[in-house]
């Protein structure tokens, strides 16, 4: 039982530090890819910029606009942290390091990511501001659409492994990682994952060049910090999920412990997310929806049907 609390504490500690550290990693990597220096003054390699940012966020005036819906306004940033952190409950970091070994793990992840939509929607609505409302509406339609393809893409993995349990899914990849038989599913999940975390290039709910700051225009101080850190946690979550579902989770050659394999693979994907941000332009809102419903949706259904057909054919 004490072991259990250690796992929860360890996972929380690692996640929150990763999310905070990503502030620095992202800015440095973006600078590297864009031929700039990035934050390099405070501390070694500019690492203390994380501390400076945190202190700044804590000491900023925590302002609630008088025209806002107060309760919902305060509640919205908590939802993003809650839903993302809850998703990590089912994530298998290593054979023994998993908080809850649910047999509906994958569905739990989908459920939590669908609840995450509320943070964007409620934050934008409660701000009672035109830009925020526009951002929230874009966010709601984007996330609710891409959730569909995300779920359908994941079903290919479920068909192959025959389980919703993430630990069993990882163990089913002992011979070959699911990236090989599920390459199309992987691509769809990757695109949908970027859209779910509303990261660039799909940061349409924020779109600072058109909507001020979108759904969190009115937020300041630690409430904004929650959205900010929630986004980095979301990146970590989607990267971890990509690794668990398609890249064999903790599996890897035995010279490194399983946890380390998981961390290395996850960080590779986090880097990919940052590279996306550094290199891609933002599509228009209608282009995003069209791409989703006219390309990804048929593709994900086709992927699921072909996978199921091959699986049935091999079994008989």
């Amino acid at each position, binding site marked *: 039982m004490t072991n259990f609390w250690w796992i929860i504490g360890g996972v929380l500690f690692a996640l929150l530090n990763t999310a905070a550290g990503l502030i620095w990693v992202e800015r440095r990597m973006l600078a590297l890819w864009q031929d700039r220096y990035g934050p390099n003054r405070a501390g070694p390699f500019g690492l203390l910029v994380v501390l400076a940012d945190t202190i700044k966020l804590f000491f900023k005036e925590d302002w609630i606009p008088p025209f806002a*819906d107060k309760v*919902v306004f305060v509640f919205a940033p908590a939802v993003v942290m809650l839903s993302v952190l809850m998703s990590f409950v089912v994530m298998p970091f290593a054979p023994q390091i998993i908080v809850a070994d*649910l*047999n*509906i793990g994958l*569905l*739990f992840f*989908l*459920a939590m990511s*669908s*609840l995450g*939509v*509320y943070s964007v*929607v*409620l934050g*934008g*609505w409660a701000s009672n501001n035109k830009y925020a*409302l526009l951002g*929230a*509406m874009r966010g*709601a*339609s984007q996330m*609710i659409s891409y*959730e569909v393809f995300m*779920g359908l893409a994941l079903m290919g993995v479920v068909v192959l492994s025959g389980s*919703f349990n993430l630990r069993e899914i990882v163990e089913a990849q002992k011979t070959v990682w699911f990236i090989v038989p599920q390459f199309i599913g992987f691509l769809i999940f990757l695109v949908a994952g970027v859209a779910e975390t509303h990261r660039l290039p799909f940061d349409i709910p924020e779109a600072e060049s058109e909507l001020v700051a979108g759904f969190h225009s009115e937020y300041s101080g630690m409430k904004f910090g929650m959205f900010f850190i929630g986004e980095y946690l979301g990146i970590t979550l989607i990267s971890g999920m990509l690794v668990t579902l398609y890249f064999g989770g903790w599996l890897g050659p035995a010279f490194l412990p399983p946890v380390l394999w998981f961390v290395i693979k996850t960080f590779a994907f986090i880097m990919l997310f940052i590279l996306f941000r550094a290199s891609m332009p933002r599509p228009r809102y209608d282009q995003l929806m069209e791409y989703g419903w006219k390309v990804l949706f048929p593709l994900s259904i086709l992927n699921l049907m072909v996978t199921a057909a091959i699986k049935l054919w091999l079994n008989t």
Partner: protein
Amino acid sequence: MIGPAFYIAAAIAVLATIMVITRYNIMHALLYLVVSLLAVAVVLYLYGAPFMAALEVIVYAGAIMVLLIFFVMMLNLGKESAEQEKLWLKPRIWIFPSLLCIILLGELVFLVLQNHQPAAEVKIVDPRAVGMALFGPYILAVELAGMLLMAGIVGAYHLGRQKEKTLHRFLENNEL
């Protein structure tokens, strides 16, 4: 085994549902409805239906309610609609529904007091069993539901179809 967790979840569900009915602000009512659905999901989980619980959260709390909130946001109902709700929901209006509810409650209490059998042992239904049931004995219902949804999608597409765009203002009124 069910004990306190069930009673807490059930109490939250009932309270949240009461709040849904009594709120004047439609957004707050919808948020309470989300809470109520989540509580029902917990109850389903406790009764050994984890798959249904997950679907309840994904489909009801995560998709349908978001859509409803999306529409409410687009309608931008503000103070005026709350005032109107207040006008509609006069105390007198509550009398008849409350009467019906009291009768129902009395019936429920009577039934609960009648039967003292212990609840059946909780049997956990895994996703595989749900799938087998849906695509085995209940395949006809699944197909019918699918057809209904298909009709809905086709209807929605028809309603949302855009008129042909005319590129010049002189051509706008000419029906081709």
